[in-house]
């Protein structure tokens, strides 16, 4: 067990070193920083409400670029390596596939945490330039975005463990979109006349991740407090869901014939 954890730690370190040199990651972060900085100019088109526009654009940029990092890079870390066959030298060492997958996840999560902190610093700077500060709701929103990214990274690793990179990316991005539509799915279920449709949507509603539980951007932008307990419950939900996805990914990846 300890050896597996040590191996995961080493893989995580290697993953971080790989990602530091990743041009895709650099470009996505650069794009997000540019978007956050440009929110200052967009805000000037409005009447008052500057802080709201800057916060909305900034948090959206952090979330979107983060999701692209989690999905595109997450898929590449397993499915991409399998496709390029660069995974074989690593797996030839005395290392379990589960430890490899966990290490990849931890390395990716570390890089996402660094990039979210970096982008939040830029957002705080832009807000400061406009004469505003960062409220506790904004910090909570950023933390929940990071956990949403962790969940998406776990999903990307899961899909990458059994299918091709392009399909894994498509599945992961679809999960992100559907994850924000679950309340509408439930409304559809309640209105549907077909028992089969009700049953199917009911199963989908319970199985798919409810990413709206991690979405408090609107509260942050409206300077409203996050309801007591929501952040903690949402955070634990994201951690548990991501862990569940990782367990399934490890099981599938361990049994997969890579030849």
């Amino acid at each position, binding site marked *: 067990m300890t050896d597996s954890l040590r191996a995961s730690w080493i893989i995580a370190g290697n993953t971080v070193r790989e990602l530091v040199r990743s041009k895709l990651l650099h470009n996505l972060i650069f794009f997000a920083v540019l978007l956050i900085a440009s929110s200052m100019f967009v805000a000037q088109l*409005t009447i008052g409400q500057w802080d*709201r526009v800057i916060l909305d654009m900034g948090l*959206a940029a952090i979330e979107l670029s983060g999701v692209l990092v989690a999905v595109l890079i997450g898929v590449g870390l397993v499915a991409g390596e399998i496709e390029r066959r660069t995974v074989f030298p690593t797996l030839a060492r005395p290392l379990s596939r589960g430890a490899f997958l966990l290490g990849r996840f931890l390395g990716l999560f570390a890089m996402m945490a660094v990039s979210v902190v970096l982008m939040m610093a830029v957002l705080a700077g832009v807000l400061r330039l406009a004469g505003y500060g960062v409220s506790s709701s904004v910090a909570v929103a950023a933390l929940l975005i990071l956990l949403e990214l962790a969940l998406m990274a776990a999903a990307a690793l899961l899909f990458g463990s059994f299918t091709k990179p392009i399909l894994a990316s498509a599945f992961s991005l679809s999960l992100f979109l559907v*994850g924000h*539509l679950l309340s509408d799915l439930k409304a559809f279920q309640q209105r549907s006349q077909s028992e089969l449709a009700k049953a199917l949507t009911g199963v989908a509603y319970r199985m798919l991740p409810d990413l709206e539980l991690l979405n408090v951007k609107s*509260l942050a*932008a*409206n300077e409203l407090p996050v309801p007591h307990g929501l952040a903690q419950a949402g955070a634990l939900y994201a951690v548990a869901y991501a862990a569940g996805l990782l367990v399934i990914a490890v099981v599938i990846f361990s049994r997969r014939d890579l030849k």
Partner: protein
Amino acid sequence: MDFPSRARAAVPAFAVVVLAACCAVLRARAQQLAPAVLEATFDIPAFPAEVVRPFSFGLRSVVADLMFLEAIQIHGGRGSKAQTLEKGGHDDRALNRLLTYATDLDPKFAGAYRFAGNAMPRQTADGKVTNVLQAVALLTKGVRERGDDWRIPFTLAFLQSYYLGRFDEAGRNFAVAAKLPGAPPYVGFLATRSSIEGGDLQFAEQLARAMLEQATEESTQQEWQERLRDLRMERDLRDIEAAAARFSARRGHAPESLAALVNAGELAAVPREPHGGRYLLSPQGEARSSAKPRLRIRGRQGTVAGLEVR
């Protein structure tokens, strides 16, 4: 290269030039024949919230901002010159739909409600006021969703009293605004004034007492005590006028004085004027105080200066 070979080589280039010329001529002709683009083509489509919301994919707040920014651009593009109802109708519809979408996507968007209240109602060049009812609907939603922002019920009350002449509703919304944190003291006074105009004296007195109890500064307490005296005076004046009307109905002529009302049994006693003055009765049966004029919002007959409100 001999001439026939050169000619053959030039054929494709020649063909391209001829076809390009044909395209230019035919395009111009087709554009002439095409029907004029209807203005409605550029209208903001009326999608219900159930459709707009899912397609924002967790970025509702940003999409709401974009709608809000577009509404500001439309409002800014109107210019200061008044337009007719028909000519500005496109912008009116666009403003209403954009701000409805913005607040459907983000129901807590206080700035959008406030902007709706200020920007949507438009006085037209042909003697109408338009987009008032739509703005009232949006602000009513805003009062429900943002119970912490005094400016939303305040703006709603302004529209109800100024454009619609619904003073009782306005009084209640001014009262809601007055009780919220950050509301200036004059909002409470507006509430009582609107309630009096709407005829609801009891509500106005209740509000004034509540405001007096929560006032912490001495000057504010004095102002509210004065307002309570005004309300008592208004109640007395209404009682006197009602008694005078009954007197006239029974005797066939107006009462000569307040004492005549008391002698005839229409009034139990001449009430004491709370400001230290005395009550007077005009030959037309209209009561007044020697100390202070009555609280009134003048010049409103249900609409603004006879304008048609939509």
